[in-house]
Every structure is written in C-alpha cells, then in structure tokens.
C-alpha cells in the first residue's frame, strides 16, 4: 500500500467518494471547465483560419463543422457549458450566502435544468439538420 | 530529563487556568495524557454558578448557604466562602477571555435555575458550557509561552522529605519514560468516575493523580463521597444535563407519576442530586422503573421543540444517537450515574496540598479541580459548582504557586522515582501473566456500582472491599499482548486500572467506616446523619499493612448544621 499522501492517494480517495453530491459537483465542474478551455483554444485556432486563408477555406471548415459528428461534439460541449455554468451559478449563490444548507438539492435542480436544456438543444439541432 | 519551573499535570479547566496564570512569571509545562481540548471539562453541560443576579437579585451569602446545605454541612465553610465570594469575578474574567455565554435580552450573561440553588445562578452556554470554557481557556494559553506535553501519561510524583521535585511521565507516542524536574507541581488530573460501571465520566477519568499521590505516600480526603447524577442516559451513563430540569423537565416513573413529589415536595426535580438519585433508585428498587427495568424517565415533551433546540441541543442529539429516542416526542430513559468525586487530594484554600490531618504542607505541591478536595463540596456537590471550583481554584493554585516560586529553587531530583517509573512501565509492557487487565477493570466497575453505589450497607461494602483486594492481587498476574512502544494504549489502560484499584480500596474502606447517611454517602444500615460522631473529614493513608484512616474537623463559620430538607 502506498503512502498516505500524494497525487495517487488523492485520486484513489477522491474517486472513492466521487458519488457524494458535493464532490460530484466539484469534479464535474473541474472536468467540464478544463474541457471548455481546450475547446476555447481550438475555437480561437479555427477563427485564425480567416487570417491565413481569406478564400473559401474558412467556409469549407465551417461546413465540415456542420456535419453530424461535429454537431454531436457540439452538443457535448453545450452540455459541458450548461453544467459548468449552472454549477457556477450554484457556487455563486453560496458565495452570496444562500442555500449552503441545501447544496445537494440545489445541485440536482441545476443539473435538471442543464439536462432539460441539452435535450431541447438536441431536438432543435436534430430538427434543423433533418435527424428526425 | 526535562526541566521547567512549574509542571501542571492535567489539561482540563483547572490545569489550564493554572497554566495560564503561572506562565505569566514562570517557565510552565502542561503534561496531559490527552490533548487538552479532549479533557472531560468539555463534557460539562449545564453551567457555572455565580451570584451575578442577572435574572433575579442574588447574593454570595445565599449561594454560600445553598452550597453549605447542599454539602450536607461537610463542606469547609472558609473554603466555600472563598468560592462563592470570588465566583462573580471568576465569571467576569472568563467572559473577558471570550467564553461564549448565552445572553439575556439586555445582553448580560444569562442564568438559569439548577438543583439545590434557590436562585437562577447557573451561567451557561446552551448545554455546552464546559466545552466553551475549556476551549476558551486553552485558546488563551496558546499565545502564552507554555510547553504542552500532549499525550504524556504521568506516572509518579517525585516527593522526597516533604518536598515535591517534579514528576515522571510516559510519552504515549514513543513509549519512553522521562523525568520532569521542577520547582513546583500542580495536580489537576480530574475525577475517577471510571471506577464505576455506570458513569457519566470519560474513559480517561481514571483518577491517575490520586494514584500518583497515594504512591508518593500522600493521603486522600473524603473519598467515600461519590456523587451519582440522577440523569445518566440508560445503560451508557452518559450525562444529560441537569439544565434539562432547570428548564422545566419532569422526572416520571414507569407508572407515569412525577415521583419527586414524594421525596422533595418543595423543590421537586430541582432538589440536589443525591436526593434525586436516591429517589430514582428507590423507585427502581420498588419495581416502579420504566418497563419494570432499572430506569426511570426524563420527560421534556412539554417544553416543545423550539426550546429544546435552543437550550438543550446537545441533549437531544445524545438521546437520539445513543438510545434512539427524541426528547421532543419521547420519554428519555435515565438512571443514576457515577458523576463526580467530592473527595480527592487534600488541599488548603489556596490549593496547597497537605500531607496529614494537621494541615502539614507538601512543599511545592499544589492541586486543583476535581482531583483535589478543598473541601467546597463536602458530602454532595451542587450542580454548576464544579466548573466554578475548577476555574477558581485552578487560578488560586496558580497564585499560590507564584508566591511559592519567589523563594523556591530546584531540589535534586530523586533518581529512584525515575527508575521506579521505568521499571513499572517495562513490567507492564512485558507482563505475560494469565489475567486480563480489561477484565479486572470490568470486575472492579461492576463491583463498585453494585456494592458501593447509591445505597450502601456494611455487608455489601465488606464484600466489595474483599473483591477490590482480590483484584489488586490478581493484577500482579496480568498479561499484555501489545509489546509495541508506539501509542500502546493497552499499557496505559493497564496503568490506569492499577490506579483505580489503588484508590477504590480507599473509597470502600472509608465508606465502610463512616456509619451515617450524609450527602452522597447513604448507609441503609445507619439511617440519619450523625453530626456528633461524623461531622468530620476522612483522611486516608495507604500504608504497608493496609489503610489507615484519620479524621479532620470540618470548618464551620456561618451556618451551623441543621436538618436538610428540600
């Protein structure tokens, strides 16, 4: 058995308790946040295309992004943004002194809102691209 | 060898108050087998007494009378006078240190009624008064220069030629024994409720200071007076504060009767603890316990949820987690529980330890708190007077120590005490006899509760004494399974058991000799108080050939003994 400290110890322990509401919210917030940062860089990269190729290259790229696999990625990203944003709102409510005794309920309320909006977005995107 | 001007043994309220004061002028060390914040002071719930008169007009004379009467006239009245006169100042000092007292509407310290007190004079912080006192005083010790030896188990006092030169202690963490050389020692090791099976006391309350005193050849005073608290949680003995009755709780028996009207018609549930404990025990013995068993009920339902949550939150938690009942809607099963030791190491009013019935001082040795017998509680302590005792006399012992330090110096440390300590620990750690120390302890506790409890008689006490002596012998043949030096609690528990076996003999022997009923000591075979023969303190010595009892007069100044009715 490894020591009582260090990153490995942390991971084992935090994964073990990751189903507790507060910890789950925290870990989700972290993971979605990091994902969005990665996307942000990709996004800026994609926009740079307009500088390097002022012709139809950008439009082609955009058209690629409108294909189904990328749309699914988009929806995942949207879900990440909703989870991160709504949980961020939840955290700010605590910061303002509200609901700290109801943090678990608040988390599930936020996640319900996130889930609903992702479902609606999926329906809209699907409808626009002829998925159904 | 460690060297400090003053060694304080015990990190509860008395010890910390002493440390806080002494550290102003001297190099001070606190040696405690627990981290000080773990001390049992923290478990005191109901309050700390002082005649502040914040709720109704009050005076120290009334407080004194109540205390004297509560003590069944065995308390030394000069000491009691000091206690009650300096009580308000003590409370204000504590408040200035930051104690989180509950407040009245005008913002003053709130006070509530308590058993045996005629006026509401218990200053409280909900039902965690001891906790806030302990934490506040410990915290105020942090900025002082005090050396804390946390989790060091004190083994023996180095007393030679009537002078105390320090102590020997075991470092629980490493298993090493060390000598602590000092100019003065203040003992504040707390009580010994653990000698009984049903007790409100912590597992750590094993009277180690008393064992140390006995081994140093010092006597103990009034050990037969053990207070049984009326509201111990059934089977666990865990304390439910008397504040519950102060706030208006009832005691009812199995038939649903408020039985106190038969025992103390005037004061009812607010009679002193000894009176109520005996009433409960009588109800139980006569078959009127709850479900016909050995408990009665505490009824708080009429107080309502809001009041219980505000004034008695801890009580509600305890009842819920330990017996699964909610005081808001259920009756709480309770029984008398060994709670407080009125007796202890005899001291003068200043905290100076004395070595005989003629008040001969032990130079450089002081004691305060529950381990000491000053004696302000006499034969029965009133609720809320113990925190006051610890806070006030801890401080006074420090003042006396400071005075002593003016002319004191280090006396040579007796090597043999150190050698004896090392040998004793080694013997226990390597013991491989057939007896089990926990089993001996259980037998002791069972015997003490059965035969030296609320009601006593000669026959039971004789059996008890024989049993204690048998257990002492059997202790020589104990076996220990844990040979490790690091945090070996099996060894420390065995050492504690040894201490308990030592002083328990004195409790039983003193109780056997005292043929009267006084306060917490109730002899069924000798009804009534006998002022003619027994208005005196027991001073017990442990000698080679057995226990020797001597007696000391009670100091009576203002209130001559009269009948005690409630």
């Amino acid at each position: 058995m490894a020591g009582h400290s260090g990153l490995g110890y942390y991971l084992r322990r935090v994964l073990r308790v990751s189903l507790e509401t507060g910890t789950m919210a925290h870990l989700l917030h972290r993971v979605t946040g990091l994902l969005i940062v990665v996307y942000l860089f990709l996004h800026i990269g994609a926009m740079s295309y307009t500088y390097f190729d002022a012709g139809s290259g950008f439009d082609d790229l955009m058209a690629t992004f409108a294909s189904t696999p990328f749309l699914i990625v988009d929806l995942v990203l949207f879900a990440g943004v909703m989870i991160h944003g709504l949980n961020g709102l939840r955290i700010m409510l605590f910061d303002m002194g509200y609901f700290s005794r109801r943090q678990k309920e608040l988390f599930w309320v936020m996640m319900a809102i996130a889930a609903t909006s992702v479902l609606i977005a999926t329906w809209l995107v699907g409808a626009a691209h002829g998925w159904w | 060898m460690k060297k400090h001007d003053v060694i304080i043994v015990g990190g509860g309220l008395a010890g910390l108050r002493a440390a806080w004061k002494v550290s102003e002028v001297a190099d001070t060390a606190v040696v405690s087998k627990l981290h000080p914040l773990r001390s049992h002071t923290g478990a005191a719930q109901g309050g700390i007494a002082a005649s502040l008169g914040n709720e109704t007009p009050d005076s120290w004379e009334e407080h004194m009378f109540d205390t004297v009467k509560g003590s069944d006239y065995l308390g030394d009245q000069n000491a009691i006078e000091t206690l009650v006169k300096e009580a308000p100042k003590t409370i204000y000092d504590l408040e200035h240190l930051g104690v989180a007292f509950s407040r009245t509407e005008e913002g003053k310290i709130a006070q509530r009624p308590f058993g045996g007190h005629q006026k509401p004079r218990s200053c409280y912080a909900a039902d965690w008064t001891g906790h806030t006192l302990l934490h506040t005083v410990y915290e105020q010790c942090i900025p002082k220069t005090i050396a804390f030896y946390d989790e060091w188990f004190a083994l023996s006092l180095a007393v030679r030629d009537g002078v105390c030169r320090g102590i020997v202690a075991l470092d629980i963490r490493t298993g090493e024994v060390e000598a602590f050389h000092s100019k003065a020692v203040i003992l504040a090791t707390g009580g010994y409720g653990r000698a009984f099976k049903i007790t409100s006391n912590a597992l750590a309350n094993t009277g180690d200071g008393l064992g140390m005193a006995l081994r140093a050849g010092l006597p103990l005073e009034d050990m037969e007076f053990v207070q049984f608290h009326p509201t111990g949680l059934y089977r666990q003995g865990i304390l439910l504060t008397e504040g519950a009755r102060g706030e208006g709780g009832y005691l009812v028996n199995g038939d649903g009767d408020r039985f106190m009207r038969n025992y103390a018609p005037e004061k009812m549930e607010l009679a002193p603890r000894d009176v109520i404990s005996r009433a409960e025990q009588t109800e139980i013995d006569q078959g009127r316990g709850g479900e016909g068993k050995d408990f009665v009920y505490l009824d708080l339902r009429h107080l309502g949820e809001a009041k219980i949550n505000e004034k008695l939150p801890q009580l509600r938690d305890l009842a819920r987690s330990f017996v699964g009942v909610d005081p808001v809607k259920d009756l709480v099963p309770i029984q008398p529980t060994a709670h407080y030791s009125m007796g202890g190491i005899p001291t003068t009013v200043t905290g100076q330890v004395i070595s005989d019935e003629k008040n001969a001082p032990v130079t450089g040795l002081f004691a305060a708190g529950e381990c000491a017998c000053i004696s302000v509680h006499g034969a029965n302590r009133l609720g809320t007077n113990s925190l006051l005792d610890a806070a006030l006399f801890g401080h006074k012992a420090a003042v006396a120590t400071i005075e002593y330090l003016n002319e004191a110096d280090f006396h040579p440390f007796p090597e043999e005490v150190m050698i004896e300590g090392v040998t004793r620990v080694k013997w226990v750690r390597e013991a491989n006899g057939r007896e089990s120390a926990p089993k001996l302890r259980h037998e002791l506790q069972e015997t003490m509760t059965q035969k030296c409890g609320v009601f006593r008689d000669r026959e039971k006490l004789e059996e008890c004494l024989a049993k204690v002596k048998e257990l002492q012998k059997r202790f020589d043949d104990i076996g220990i399974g844990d040979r490790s030096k690091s945090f070996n609690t099996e060894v420390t528990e065995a050492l504690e058991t040894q201490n308990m076996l030592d002083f328990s003999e004195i409790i039983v022997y003193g109780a056997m000799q005292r043929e009267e009923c006084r306060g917490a000591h109730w002899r069924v075979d000798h009804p009534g108080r006998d002022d003619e023969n027994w208005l005196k303190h027991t001073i017990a010595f442990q000698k080679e050939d057995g226990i020797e009892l001597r007696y000391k007069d009670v100091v009576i100044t203002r209130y001559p003994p009269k009948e005690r009715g409630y």
Partner: protein
Amino acid sequence: MGGGELQQTVHIHASKRSFWLWFLQRVSSVGLIVVLLFHMIVLHYVDPSAEITLADTHVRLQSFLFIIVDSLLLGFGLFHGLNGVRNVAYDYFPKPGTRKAISSILLIVGVVVFVWGAFVLVNLVLAG
C-alpha cells in the same frame, strides 16, 4: 518570561492578488454568461440550420456591438479559463516554486493568445 501575543509570530500574508483573482473569476463568469448567451443565440439559435460563412462573419463584425461582444468573449474566456486552470493546478502542486512557474506560463499563454485573438479579430473587422 512573560507571555503576550506579540511573541507569537503569525505570518500575515494577506494577498490582495488572490482576492482579486477570485473576485474577477466571479465577475468574468457573470460576464461570460451574458456574452456567451448572446454569442450562441445569434450564431446558433436564431437559425440552427444556417451555416456560418466568412462573408457573414465580415458583415456581422461591421456592427460595433459584435466587436465588443467578441472581444469580451475572448478576454473573459481566456481569463476565466486560464485562471481556472491555475486554480486546479494550485490544488495539486502546492510547492511555491512550481506554482510560480505555473502562474507565469499561464500568464504568458494568456497574453499571447489574447494578442493573437485580438489580431485575428481586427483583421476580420478590417477585411469586412
């Protein structure tokens, strides 16, 4: 001997920077909610089937509002994201030296990407 709290050396290292970073993290998050909502509604929701083209983008960026929104998005996003990364990293790398290195790298990345992003934006505006 004598006590007194003066003898105790408690290091008071109040750090205004950590306060401001924390505070701006909240401010930027509120900002992001606003501009991101705007950004996404206009680009994706008004007409989910519309394809984004360079020409549209040029037209869009002739509006001052869009210039502001897009630059705020870039600034808030970079700050919030990179400061978030810093927060995460600080948890797992408590050594002051490592933290300083992480902070510096993130700061440089942030500035460089912001400058580059702004350059691209300006280019788009001018090209329109």
